[in-house]
């Protein structure tokens, strides 16, 4: 089973040169730490920045420069600032190539639920619905099962949906899976030491296993 950092590390291998990328809060944010330095990529912050740099030193902290998680940040060379309408014009217009975000549930047809648990406090969807409705490539970073052991890869989502038929790939602590356009999770890679049987038993939705399933490489 992978640690959070390893999930992030595995997802970083999906990043391609020249991509503009939006990283959600949580594990997705960690992905930035594992992107090879020789790749030219740009991170977007939906509150109005292209080119997120490292966190600031104490001296660099600027209250007027935060990311979508409200954390203080810095810029890189070539960064650009803009307003919220322009930011989502980029997202909605398909200019951001890759969105990596967390999920509470994913269904076998690529639906995602990650913004609301009825009966509990509702914080709102923020930019998640715009992101999942727009990006050409959406990768979900999540635990395969909930803390109580229930599968989060389902036939259909039980929680209120954030977007339909949008997730392309899922990286969990157990596996790398692709969503089949016809429905079903195609098992691509196993976490080191995790068997196909275990993944099968922890996937409620249809699991498609073709041929030998390799272990992930880092």
């Amino acid at each position: 089973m992978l640690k959070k950092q390893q999930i992030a590390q595995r997802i970083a291998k999906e990043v391609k040169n020249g991509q503009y990328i939006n990283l959600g809060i949580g594990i997705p944010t960690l992905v930035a730490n594992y992107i090879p330095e020789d790749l030219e990529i740009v991170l977007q912050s939906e509150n109005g920045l292209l080119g997120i740099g490292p966190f600031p030193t104490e001296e660099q902290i600027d209250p007027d420069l935060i990311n979508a998680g409200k954390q203080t940040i810095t810029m890189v060379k070539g960064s650009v600032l803009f307003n919220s309408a322009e930011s989502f014009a980029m997202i909605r217009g398909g200019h951001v190539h890759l969105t990596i975000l967390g999920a509470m549930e994913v269904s076998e047809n690529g639906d995602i639920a990650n913004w609301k648990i009825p009966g509990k406090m509702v914080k709102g969807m923020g930019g998640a619905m715009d992101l999942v409705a727009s990006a050409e490539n959406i990768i979900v970073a999540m635990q395969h099962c909930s803390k109580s052991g229930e599968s989060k890869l389902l036939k259909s989502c039980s929680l209120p949906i954030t977007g339909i038929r949008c997730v392309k790939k899922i990286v969990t602590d157990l596996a790398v899976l692709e969503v089949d356009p016809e429905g079903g999770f195609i098992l691509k890679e196993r976490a080191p030491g995790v068997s196909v049987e275990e993944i099968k038993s922890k996937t409620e939705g249809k699991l498609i296993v073709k041929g030998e399933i390799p272990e992930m490489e880092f």
Partner: protein
Amino acid sequence: MINKTVKDANEAVQDIPSGAFLMMGGFGLSGIPENCISALLQRDIKDLTIVSNNAGVDDFGIGLLLQKRMVKKMISSYVGENAEFERQLLSGELEVDLIPQGTLAERVRAGGAGIPAFFTPAGVGTEVAEGKEIREFDGKLYLMERWLRSDFSLVKAWKGDTAGNLIFKGTARNFNPMMAAAGKITIAEVEELVPAGELDPNQIHTPGIYVQRIFEGKNYEKRIEQRTVRS
């Protein structure tokens, strides 16, 4: 050039009535109209509807207006951690309309730009789509969304001139420019107010045509929600 200057925040917000439909710039606590919020707290008004991406925190920003029970309804994309907000929401004292962030930005932009409705893919297949027209364009489904316009928009800029031209700083720009354009009356507070002609015409983010009142604010706290430093 038209002079939009007013003396201070108190003068700027003095005619905002109970029941007004307001917009307030800011993302989290960054770029919020601190002086106008303080002046509103002095006013004996209530039942405000506020369009703002977030609802502040318990003891700062819009959270202060919630504490004083001045708000009837929030229209936001993310209302974060705010205990008083949660209490009022669960008790039914506060109405909340949650909108995808990009849809919120575009609805406000549409209000300023005279576009009464537009189509967006955000929210298709979700509860956000309930009651809305769904239409297919080029094989993809979209929702029809309406414009948002305010009685008063309260925005915060870095620099401004007496003609109402505004320049924002960093990510404190966020929703401020669209809200400035979508207000019947737009009140801009700025960290530095200069005479018309001192800002480079090519570098202005919000043209003064959208601003009816402007003043130089003071004592900006600029509270940081998630102070994060390099390890």
